[in-house]
């Protein structure tokens, strides 16, 4: 029997409507349109606005589009992995919430958290389920509402990040396509360089952590 490969067979995205320009950031913090553009290459970013709107809202829209595009029913999905650093809430997993919003009922789902490498780690994790032959339709959705953890008084970080979601469908194939190889590594020593100080088990939220602006990147 020939080897089963896991291939991306579709990709869909969702970007929130609101576009935050460098010009508008100029009004918010001490920066300039030109500085942002030359230093970062960024001109615009999308921001999710609206009370009660979270990462799962963007992610579920991307996943719905993915299913419609492929003519796949939510019932056919075996597994959904969401990768995010801005989950809707600490628990349950945002993947569970997305599955509920989309109507995926015959699957299991969970989140993976690995900051900016989350999507590639999740893609390879998902590919192993497909390669096993046990899972036929697996979704990986990468989504973040970065604006929920960005301090819009900090000119260093607020110009960089944006909100958005993208989803891929992975399916088995015996053709010579799909995920071939990966090289992954991590080193927790680097945690001091990019992290959110408070809100986790080490430093649960208090009035002090909020006053010290420790719930931001």
């Amino acid at each position, binding site marked *: 029997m020939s080897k089963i490969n896991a*291939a*991306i*067979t579709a*990709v*869909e*995205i969702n*970007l929130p409507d609101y576009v935050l320009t460098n010009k508008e950031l100029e009004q918010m913090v001490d920066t300039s349109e030109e500085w942002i553009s030359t230093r*970062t*290459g*960024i*001109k*615009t*970013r999308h921001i999710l606005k609206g009370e009660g709107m979270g990462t799962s809202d963007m992610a579920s829209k*991307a996943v719905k589009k993915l299913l419609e595009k492929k003519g796949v029913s939510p019932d056919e999905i075996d597994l959904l992995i969401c*990768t*995010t*650093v*801005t989950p809707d809430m600490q628990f349950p997993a945002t993947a569970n919430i997305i599955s509920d919003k989309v109507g995926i009922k015959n699957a299991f789902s969970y989140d993976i958290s*690995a*900051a*900016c*490498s*989350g*999507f*590639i*780690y999740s*893609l390879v994790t998902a590919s192993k389920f497909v390669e096993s032959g046990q899972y036929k339709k697996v979704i990986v*959705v*990468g*989504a*973040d509402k*970065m604006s929920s953890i960005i301090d819009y008084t900090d000119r260093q970080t607020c*110009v*960089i*990040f*944006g*909100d*958005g*979601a*993208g*989803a*891929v469908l992975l399916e088995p*194939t015996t*053709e*010579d*396509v*799909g*995920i*071939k*190889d*990966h*090289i*992954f590594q*991590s*080193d927790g020593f*680097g*945690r001091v*360089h*990019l*992290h959110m100080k408070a809100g986790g088990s080490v430093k649960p939220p208090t009035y002090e952590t909020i006053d010290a602006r420790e719930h931001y990147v």
Partner: protein
Amino acid sequence: MADVSVEIMKKNNLNSEDITFLVPHQANMRIIEAVGRRMGLDKERIMINIQKYGNTTNGTIPLCLKDYEKQMKKGDNIVLAAFGGGFTWGSVYLKWAYDTN
């Protein structure tokens, strides 16, 4: 990110000419360009959309794949690369599986 991108090429006997696209995490234009240079790729073969969306953390790579979907053909060699908090980093080599009309 540059090291593991070059390493995955060597490991799979891929030369610069064999790679159709590098899909880098969109954190910083200078890092993106540096990775491309190390892999011997000109700018046309690097997916870039940071100017439109900024750094969307977990969204960057699928957002790139969507923007460049029509330019990829079945069988194209694609390298994904990311670096971020943790630290975490890595590269993925894949062959694109479909054509988009």
